[in-house]
């Protein structure tokens, strides 16, 4: 939806479940994206809990988890949403005078728009929703309600199992062959697939070191660091500005992705493009680990046309640095804006290889997979 179109924005506000005040100092370049004041959203939503009788509690719970930032990462968000939809389907009963197909689709759509209000959809979630709707639409009309509900729940289970859990196992097997003894592996932020790869390679007994690169404002790398250290891997921790300093001793770079687009661009956490660029300058191979269900037929050239904007207070406030934090009360100053991008687009020339459950492919093969294997959805 275009957020620079005032008419549409007003219409969507009327349909909104909870109100979100728009941020005051919006960056001009990003007027087409939503940007809200994050302070009051969570309390507002919590206070509305008892009023939302049309909202299934499972979906509400997932929405609150997204808003609070408890559930992050493409896979985790997708699985949480699909489990919530399973509960919805289990508790569903067709109201008199309506067909299951149309009514259930409408319900799912309303839940999806609620989730979008909490946090814009990731690509993985978008693909899962499309899969879900196509499964509902393809239900044979001869099925009774209980059979239809059972079939749909089964489909969701199969989707999660095949597309996410088994796919991760295949990716880990493939990627572990690329880790040799004496390697120094660099990773950025926290990706669940990359973590699994590192732990699996460590279990296999390979001797390697890990470099974890982290950045503001989320410091996601620290959680990954803790989990790796608990398993006994030797790690180096640094921040993204020091990537040029550390890159000369790195042999491989493993990165996760939120999605890979059809022109080979990798859409992932902001900062991934910087890391891939420096690795390319130092001739270090960059491997993207991404399940195939995250591929998308969209194309994107830069990080500005489509992105997500986070809380600008996260930028203004630096935890633990009172000398810098005297900026905090200036978030409403007219000339000053804070930009908190969540994603960025890595050009395909920086990526050496993409490891998916369909194998290890170059970035140019992504549109082939999108075209050939989309039909597989219909065959389930």
């Amino acid at each position, binding site marked *: 939806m275009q957020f620079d179109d005032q008419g549409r924005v007003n219409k969507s506000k009327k349909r909104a479940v909870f109100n979100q005040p728009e941020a005051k100092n919006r960056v001009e370049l990003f007027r087409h994206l939503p940007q809200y004041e994050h302070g009051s959203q969570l309390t507002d939503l919590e206070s509305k809990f008892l009023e939302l009788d049309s909202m299934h509690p499972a979906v509400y719970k997932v929405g609150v988890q997204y808003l609070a930032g408890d559930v992050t990462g493409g896979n985790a968000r997708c699985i949480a949403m699909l489990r919530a939809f399973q509960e919805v389907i289990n508790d569903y009963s067709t109201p008199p005078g309506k067909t299951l197909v149309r009514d259930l689709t409408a319900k799912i759509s309303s839940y999806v728009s609620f989730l979008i209000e909490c946090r814009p959809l990731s690509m993985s979630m978008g693909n899962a929703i499309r899969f879900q709707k196509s499964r509902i639409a393809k239900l044979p009309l001869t099925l009774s309600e209980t059979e239809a509900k059972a079939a749909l729940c089964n489909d969701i289970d199969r989707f999660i199992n095949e597309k996410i859990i088994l796919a991760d196992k295949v990716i880990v097997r493939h990627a572990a062959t690329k880790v040799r003894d004496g390697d120094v592996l660099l990773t950025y932020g926290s990706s669940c697939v990359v973590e699994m790869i590192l732990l699996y390679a460590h279990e296999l007994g390979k001797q390697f070191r890990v470099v974890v690169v982290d950045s503001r404002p989320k410091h996601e790398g620290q959680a990954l660091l803790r989990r790796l250290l608990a398993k006994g891997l030797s790690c180096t921790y640094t*921040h993204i500005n020091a990537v040029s300093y550390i890159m000369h001793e790195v042999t491989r770079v493993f990165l996760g992705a939120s999605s890979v687009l059809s022109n080979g661009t990798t859409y992932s956490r902001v900062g991934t493009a910087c890391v891939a660029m420096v690795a390319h300058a130092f001739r270090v191979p960059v491997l993207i680990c991404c399940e195939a269900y995250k591929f998308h037929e969209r194309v994107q050239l830069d990080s500005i046309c489509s992105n997500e904007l986070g809380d600008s207070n996260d930028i203004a406030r630096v935890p633990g640095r009172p000398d810098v934090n005297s900026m905090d009360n200036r978030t409403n100053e007219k000339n000053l804006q804070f930009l908190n991008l969540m994603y960025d687009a890595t050009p395909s020339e920086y990526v050496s290889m993409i490891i998916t459950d369909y194998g290890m492919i170059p970035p140019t093969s992504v549109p082939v997979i999108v075209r050939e294997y989309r039909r597989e959805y219909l065959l389930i």
Partner: protein
Amino acid sequence: MPDTQALVMTFLTSLKNATARQTAELLRSVISQQRVPYTNQAGALIDAVKAVGEQLIAANPVELAVGNIVRRVLHIIREEDLSLTTAAIGELNLSAVSDDENDDDRDGNTTLSAAAVAAAARSTLRPPSLQTLLEDTPVSAAVPQTSSSGAADKSSRSRKLKHDVIEAVNELIQDIVTCHEQIAEQAVEHIHQNEVILTLGSSRTVSEFLFAAKEKKRSFRVFVAEGAPRYQGHLLAKELVARGLQTTLITDSAVFAMISRVNMVIVGAHAVMANGGVIAPVGMNLVALAAQKHAVPFVVLAGSHKLCPLYPHNPEVLLNELRSPSELLDFGEFSDCMDFGSGSGSPLLHVVNPAFDYVPPKLVSLFITDAGGHNPSYMYRLIADYYSADDLVVQRRAIAGN
């Protein structure tokens, strides 16, 4: 000289905040308090400055500006000595011609004996030939004592040398202090209307540059990358907003995302090496690579006192300094992993926190100094203006039989 030694000691302890200007002021007091012998004054001054300079450089090798100023002062001493000697020789030729003139009316300075002048000329005018090197005799021994009128003249000549040197050092200090204005004057040539500028961290030269352009009514917007882990970008953004500039503060990870919409990158430098490479706050290499990929000009602002005559591959040059890990990680959370005493004796976790970044010359589009704009490939020529080849290694040579 106990006075100068005490001064040097207090200076060394405060070397964290040492600037080029303070170094120059310290060396000026060293020179003014140095007692010079009648002959070879320049040599004595050079030795004194080298002694102090060695200590200064050893105290904080990463602070290249200190070494630069020491070498500048040494160059000044040699130059002043050279100009005095050429003046003396010039006047000696005159005196040879007008030999019958009345000696009393002449200026005291010019009545130097030919031998003394020739000896001085040998030491300064001619480059050391094999013969002088093999002789290895201190020049003062070869100079015969001059006749009576010499005493007053020599002291006035030595005073003149010190006086000239101190004047030149004062000029140097003045240059250092005003370098920001001279660089800022060139701002209007480089910033046009409706421009978008990106910078990282905070540099006084950059903020003065942008203010100067704003004064001349150019309207432009600035993206400031915050420059973790020191977060100086926040301070720069505050200053720019206070002056009425449209500023957007971004994280360092968003630099690649935003640089496609930027017209120019303007940054300051910690030091400029002789090959045109730049030593800058950490994160600058990232910005330079991104700017090259998107064909955005990468402009470095640096005063001429930041130009270092050494190359990055010289062993004396420490390109970097590693700072405390506590800026990145909370010690309390990870203390068991970073402890050398746990488990097998080596810690599982290393934290790397470099302070500087090296940007190779091929990524830099332009240097703007107080002497104008230059290509990175031209910077080595400026060294000849400011430094002498003898001073590249600031060490006192052990004099035989001392």
